[in-house]
């Protein structure tokens, strides 16, 4: 294809990508380098229905308006927001490393910093849910593929349900089920003969239920892709393997899995990216006490009585960097495979 035709061909999507992806990211980056102007505070008398009149501190709005007119973005803060306690916490980490009572102390004190706490759950979620969901999806795909034709349609539909349900609703449904008076929670209490057992009270059990939810909701995507892949497995190869006396497991191991490997790379790529942005289950499970994620931190900065745009911007940029780091090995592999094929 001549370059000109190619360019004309992708121009519309290029414009859309610049407008809706590149520009917002640039704006987030710029935002993350700024903090609010120093507030001009004044003491004024304030009266309300309860407690009568008291002297209170207020922001001098006229002075602030002048400051804002001069520099609407706020004060330039460079990497200050990135390095503060809410994010990379460079000073705090330095202090922890220079004076501590051992490895356990270092880990627990670093885990106490909000960014690292969120990062640890995010990474655990990524690396536990992605392989398990892919394995489960693959297993479902194999099972469905072996079903007689008339039953395939309904079974596929049911297998896809977790993906069709909105994540927040899906997590709420599961959350209600694991409550002590929900079906799963009550059954567990019965099984373990412990009327106080609750999946929501300890960090460990909360993490386990979130990971379970993650596998449940992510498996259908792997299933769909692998199921489609299974339809392309060459029948001749399978048949010759059967003639050679290969068992079902051997056929899967030596024919199907190698055939689906490139697909698995693709699924892993998408799933890692998705799982790094885990958010809905934390809100749905009311798990903020025990598990937070990078996306939840952004949400927390932007909701509530005071909004911290610089902080949210910095966390967003760190999330993007995290996604890039996570995907690098997979991308390098894809790139190598691509080069191999060309050569």
């Amino acid at each position: 294809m001549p370059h000109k035709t190619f360019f004309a061909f992708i121009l519309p999507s290029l414009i859309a990508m610049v407008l809706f992806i590149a520009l917002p990211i640039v704006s987030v980056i710029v935002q993350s380098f700024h903090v609010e102007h120093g507030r001009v505070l004044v003491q004024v008398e304030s009266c309300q229905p309860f407690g009568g009149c008291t002297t209170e501190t207020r922001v001098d709005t006229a002075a602030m308006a002048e400051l804002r007119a001069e520099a609407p973005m706020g004060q330039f803060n460079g990497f200050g927001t990135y390095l503060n306690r809410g994010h990379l916490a460079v000073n705090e980490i330095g202090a922890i490393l220079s004076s501590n009572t051992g490895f356990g102390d270092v880990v627990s004190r670093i885990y106490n910093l909000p960014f690292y706490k969120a990062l640890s759950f995010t990474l655990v979620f990524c690396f536990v849910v992605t392989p398990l969901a892919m394995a489960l999806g693959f297993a479902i795909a194999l099972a469905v593929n072996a079903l007689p034709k008339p039953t395939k349609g309904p079974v596929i539909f049911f297998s896809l349900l977790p993906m069709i349900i909105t994540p927040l609703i899906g997590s709420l449904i599961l959350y209600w089920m694991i409550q002590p008076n929900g079906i799963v929670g009550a059954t567990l209490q019965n099984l373990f003969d412990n009327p106080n057992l609750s999946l929501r009270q300890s960090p460990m059990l909360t993490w386990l239920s979130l990971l379970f939810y993650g596998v449940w909701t992510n498996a259908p995507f792997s299933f769909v892709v692998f199921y489609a892949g299974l339809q392309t497995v060459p029948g001749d190869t399978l048949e010759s393997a059967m003639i050679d006396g290969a068992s079902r497991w051997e056929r899967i191991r030596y024919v199907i899995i190698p055939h689906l490997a490139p697909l698995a790379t693709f699924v892993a790529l998408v799933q890692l990216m998705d799982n790094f942005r885990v958010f809905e289950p934390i809100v749905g499970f009311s798990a903020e006490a025990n598990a937070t994620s990078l996306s939840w931190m952004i949400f927390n900065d932007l909701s509530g009585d005071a909004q911290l745009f610089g902080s949210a911007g910095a966390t967003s940029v760190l999330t993007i960097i995290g996604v890039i780091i996570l995907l690098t090995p997979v991308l390098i592999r894809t790139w190598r495979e691509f080069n191999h094929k060309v050569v």
Partner: protein
Amino acid sequence: MKLMLKTTVSLGALLLTAGAAFAACGIEGTGSVRILSNDFEALRLVNTTAGECAADGVTVTANATAEHKNLQVPALSISPAEYTVAVVANNSIVPLLNDDLIRPLDDLVAKYGQSLQPNQLIKIDGKTVAIAFMGNAQHLFYRKDLLDKAGIAEPKSYEDMLAAAEKLKADGIIATPLAASDKPGWDLAAEFVNTYLGTGGEFFAPGSAELAIDNENGLKTLENMKALTAYMDPDYLTFDANGIQAEYKAGNVAMMVQWGSLAGDMLKGEGAAEGVVANTVMAGAPTIGGGTTPAVALWWDGFTIAKNISDEDAAASFQAMVHGISPEMVAANPTVATWLVAGYEPGPNAVGVIATANGGARAYPMQPYMGLLHTALSAELAEFMAGSESAEQALADVKAAYDTAAKEGGYL
């Protein structure tokens, strides 16, 4: 968005059908009234009543949504503002004040505010910035039948509550005598603010944004919050105000400090187990540590008028809202809220709030940086409440998180 639209549309329909139950509105002049408010029964009622002012040349629309706090600043920043009226409380007025988005109301009060009482005017630096119309506070709800069975009198302090809870549990009367809205986030932070107010401590060093909770009052507050959890459902960290309301209604709880604005719902008793509502008594909020101040914050809800709108719209909006909170409306709906309006006769739902206010409870602080502290508390207390962190560490974390945010917000 869809939900918001639905709310708006259904409210619009309500406005159209609202009968002439109250005196006619009769706005002077013309204009457009656009109300943004939180979404609960009392505010919906005010909005509907204000809607009666719709006439030739006067349009009234209302958007009651729980997302109001996130909408108000952007919506009032543009010119003309998306809403002419923002219904706010102690805390949500602060962002509007910080960004100078609401107008002084003194002229309008002089011209159209004859029915208002002096204590309804929220004044800052001598200028009226908001008109309060209802009060709210958390206060004690308890089950008289259960306490009688254990021979316990009405608890007046948290120490009484702990002793009562111990007895109720030991006597086998109820397994989880207490409940509190300890869900990490806004609710948990509000619990801290409540108890800390009861200790008499100040949140900030006078005249500055320097945090001052890292002291024995702060420790006492945390210790008390933690001590209560020993008598709660083990899932206490997942319950918000609506959660404990449901637990209480189900008969699982004997005592809780709950919002006055939910007292009406409790008395209606929808979904409550047999005998729960009939035996429920509302009382003033408990004190702490031998103090005399009820350990809760007092709240007011009021309306403000946007700055970036025409004077005609502002006048029409003010008149419509004054009609919305008129003494006639309050006289017809005494049980919906604890009104601050002239001629209000408190109903059974208001007993707790009034007892709390009379007990000398302090108002929720209105400092411009209070929101930052609330956010810091909401995220940093969870580990302490879950039992994986010491109280000293929790307070140090709150201070560190607050300092980071306050620097970013330009306060330190």
